[in-house]
């Protein structure tokens, strides 16, 4: 396997509030290889975005308590002092956000905003920075890049803005690109184009990509490996083809069962009953057990480990392989039988 570009170990993010500590991310570990797309999937509030913002040190330092390690190029991102982190941000690790309408400064020209990313880490003339911006806009598929670089963001469509955000992220050829719900705010027709673009630049720029989404369809299209998160914890982690073919965790079954596909009619979809737990007051044991139709006594008392099975496929569940096969065989709602 190719070189590891990002090694996250035991990442924990806690927001102390008046009502108690919000356990946004608990003991999250994963590795990202060069040239690979890691899909992180989960519901809102599952900690997928927060964990990435923590890596970038973009969470408010006053309000978040972050622990763990995240190694990138031999440095631990989580313990870098702010000024050194500033030199890594946008250079070795870059990020594309969810809402391209809000993420570009409305009063600066698109080209200037990208050129600014150039000069943030490199001593070059403004002309050279602008030329680089135009070049990158062209590479991400903006027609008439030279002319369009002088436009303001409101003159761009949503898809074009997201392309511009991607161009901005590519400026210093980072080894890691984090895309946080990059297609959620876009029209369906544009979503596929943006995903294709991310895949293409991943290869061209030889990066590792973390793709955060709540949309399993997006994951199925692009991810090489998948991390399923629930209530701040990794529930299942493994190669994408394996995870889709043989999902191991009841939560993943639920996610797959609630995903609409072309073949499945609406009435065949099965929603996961209940709602995600409060992160201030996580249920004891497995955080998913109050909603899990397969839960038994042990699930409410002990937190299952994330056990690595053969093939690097890990799963956090007390069910034995035998019990899982039975649940699958019964074909009851929320089982993988219903999903595929």
């Amino acid at each position, binding site marked *: 396997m190719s070189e590891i570009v990002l090694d996250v170990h035991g990442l924990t993010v806690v927001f102390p509030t008046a009502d108690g500590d919000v356990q946004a991310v608990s003991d999250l570990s994963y590795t990202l290889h060069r040239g690979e797309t890691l899909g992180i999937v989960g519901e809102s509030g599952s900690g997928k975005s927060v964990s990435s913002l923590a890596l970038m040190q973009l969470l408010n330092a006053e309000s978040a308590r972050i622990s763990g390690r995240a190694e990138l190029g031999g440095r631990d991102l989580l313990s870098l002092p702010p000024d050194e982190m500033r030199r890594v941000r946008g250079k070795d690790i870059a990020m594309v956000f969810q809402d391209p309408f809000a993420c570009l400064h409305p009063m600066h020209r698109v080209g200037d905003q990208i050129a*600014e990313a150039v000069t943030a880490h490199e001593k070059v003339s403004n002309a050279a920075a602008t030329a680089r911006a135009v070049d990158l806009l062209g590479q991400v598929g903006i027609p008439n890049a030279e002319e369009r670089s002088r436009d303001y963001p409101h003159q761009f469509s949503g898809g074009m803005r997201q392309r511009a955000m991607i161009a901005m992220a590519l400026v210093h050829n980072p080894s890691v690109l984090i895309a946080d719900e990059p297609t959620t705010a876009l029209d369906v027709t544009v979503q596929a184009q943006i995903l294709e673009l991310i895949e293409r630049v991943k290869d061209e720029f030889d990066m590792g990509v973390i793709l955060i989404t709540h949309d399993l369809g997006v994951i199925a299209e692009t991810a090489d490996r998948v991390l399923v998160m629930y209530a701040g914890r990794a529930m299942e982690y493994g190669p994408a083809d394996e995870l889709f073919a043989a999902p191991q965790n009841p939560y993943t079954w639920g996610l797959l069962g609630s995903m609409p596909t072309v073949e499945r009619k609406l009435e065949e979809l099965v929603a996961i009953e209940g709602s995600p737990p409060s992160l201030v007051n996580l249920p004891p044991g497995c955080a998913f057990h109050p909603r899990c139709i397969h839960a038994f006594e042990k699930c409410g008392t002990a937190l299952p480990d994330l056990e690595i099975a053969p093939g690097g496929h890990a799963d956090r569940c007390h069910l034995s392989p035998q019990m899982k096969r039975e649940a699958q065989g019964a074909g009851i709602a929320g089982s993988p039988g219903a999903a595929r």
Partner: protein
Amino acid sequence: MVLYIVRRTLWAIVVVLIVLLLTYVVFYLLPAGDPALRFAGKSPTPESLELIRERLGLDQPWYQQYAKFVKNFFTGDEYGWPGLGYSYVNGVPVLEQVKERTPRTLLLIVGAATIWLIVGVSIGVLSAVKRRTVADRAAMGFVLFGISAPVFWLGLMALYIFWNKLGWTGGTGYVPISENPSGFFSHMILPWTVLAMLFAAIYARMTRNTLLETLGEDYIRTARAKGLSERQVITHHALRASLTPIVTMFGMDVALLVGGAIITESVFNIQGLGWLAITSTFNQDLPSVVGVVMLGAVAVVVMNLFVDIAYAFLDPRVRYA
């Protein structure tokens, strides 16, 4: 853009005419005495009063006087353009009075505005960036003081301390800059500071609030994600976006002060437009009141137009057709 400016200018004229009409109506609905009596001197005879009324046009209904005034305003009268008539009290042309008083008020405003913009915005930025620190608390303490302290009290205290006790500055009164530049500054520094105090406080609070709001925007996170320094993030991204509300407020405040720095002008005896407005009102000197009101209305309308046009330059999303 040109069309827009033309349209706005025409509207501005309409607004000024309406303001003027209201001034006339108010003045004639609340007459507390006969202006002709003042004009006539110590022992007027009915004949002389009649003569004065005829000369001043007071024998005509108010709307005819208004129509005559509007006509003179646009075409000019014997004292020049715009025609504003002459004072009922001392027979001096209003235009001349206004011309004499305007520089005082404008210089007062320019100096004060410079101080409050620099001080207010700096304090606002500082306290937003250093939120919840001692500096922030101190800044907000200053804001509370500036907003609550009445201008007349501040002015008198400043005069007492810096002029009377310490002798650092000049006292009350106005020294023309052309006659004595150092005397001008020495006499203006206190009124500038006192007038700027309230506005600096308001601007500090507003800058802090808008900046904090802007700092929560997604594009600020993008700027940080690029690896920009905090200083660049604040100046080039956050402050840039906070500029629009500051400019709006600035335009309106400056315009309102043209006719309304009355307390500061009185405390420091500057005798500018505010002072002219107040004394003319007490003397029922309609033409002088109207002169100041016209200037104030024009200032508001012009600054409004200026602010709207400035918008187009500040915010590319705003384009006028």
